[in-house]
């Protein structure tokens, strides 16, 4: 049996919530809830969480990709009250910027009539161009990440992403710093995308519960 509401996160001590968000109080905590049909996809849940964040609600967000029912959110709030309250204090006034550096793998076509050794040498040269771009991307992104409270880096093929945890009050200064830093680079083929400010999704901890079953 479910209540038909989805949890967006946990909060404390706020009065005005943007519709359709409602709050269920559990002691000192509040659970941010929306009707299931309005939060049916990860993207709609993220949009609703953004709505809360932009309304200056301090909250610990759930992962948008993993829907959490009201009953489960309630059980969690009761079981982990102290940890959630600590996290609310820890992340008060903070948000994250996401810096994404991308580049293209060089697509220079190799001639058809070419011996094996030469082909390998040319392919190696293309990889070394891509490696150089990777190093430049890391150097640029390292220079952008100041001053931050914490950061998380992810790397994939031809992409480096860094989430940086910052104070909301420092946003404009940090964005100006990133712009200035990016202007200093002569980096053909590299692309920097900065998005935010987001709720601190990448920094809220994973809560764990251990159980032992003895047979």
């Amino acid at each position, binding site marked *: *049996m*479910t209540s038909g509401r*989805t949890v967006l*996160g946990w909060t404390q001590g706020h009065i005005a919530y943007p519709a359709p968000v409602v709050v269920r109080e559990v002691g000192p905590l509040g659970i941010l809830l929306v009707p*299931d049909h309005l939060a*049916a*996809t*990860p*993207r709609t849940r*993220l*949009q609703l969480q*953004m709505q809360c964040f*932009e309304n200056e609600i301090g909250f610990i*967000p*759930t*992962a*948008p990709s*993993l*829907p*959490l*029912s009201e009953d*489960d959110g309630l059980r*969690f709030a009761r079981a982990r009250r102290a940890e959630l309250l600590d996290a609310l204090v820890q992340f008060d006034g903070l948000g994250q910027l996401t810096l*994404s550096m*991308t580049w293209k793998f060089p697509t220079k076509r190799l001639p058809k009539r070419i011996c094996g050794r030469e082909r390998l040498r040319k392919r190696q040269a293309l990889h070394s161009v891509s490696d150089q771009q990777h190093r430049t991307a890391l150097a*640029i992104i390292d220079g952008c990440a100041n001053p931050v409270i914490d950061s998380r880096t*992810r790397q994939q093929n031809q*992409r480096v*992403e860094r*989430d940086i945890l910052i104070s909301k009050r420092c946003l404009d200064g940090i964005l100006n710093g990133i*712009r200035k830093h*990016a*202007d200093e*680079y*002569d*980096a053909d083929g*590299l*692309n*920097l*995308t*900065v*998005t*935010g*400010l*987001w*709720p601190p*999704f*990448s920094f*809220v*901890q*994973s*809560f*764990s*519960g*251990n*159980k*032992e*079953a*003895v*047979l």
Partner: protein
Amino acid sequence: MALEMHMAAPSDALASSDARLVDVVDGLLRHGVVIRGELWLTVADVELVFLGLDLVLAAPDTVRRAGAA
């Protein structure tokens, strides 16, 4: 040639179909509070099976609805 740079507010990123912004949003969707569970099955103090569970702390019909969405 200078580094190509774009800045996007969350609302723009969420509404955009630009592949770079879609990738950024996809990366965010996977983060946030994830409730994990760990289960050990033990016989006579010997740990036989370890199960690591990433959330699915949701009612079955909720999961089915999310899967269908």
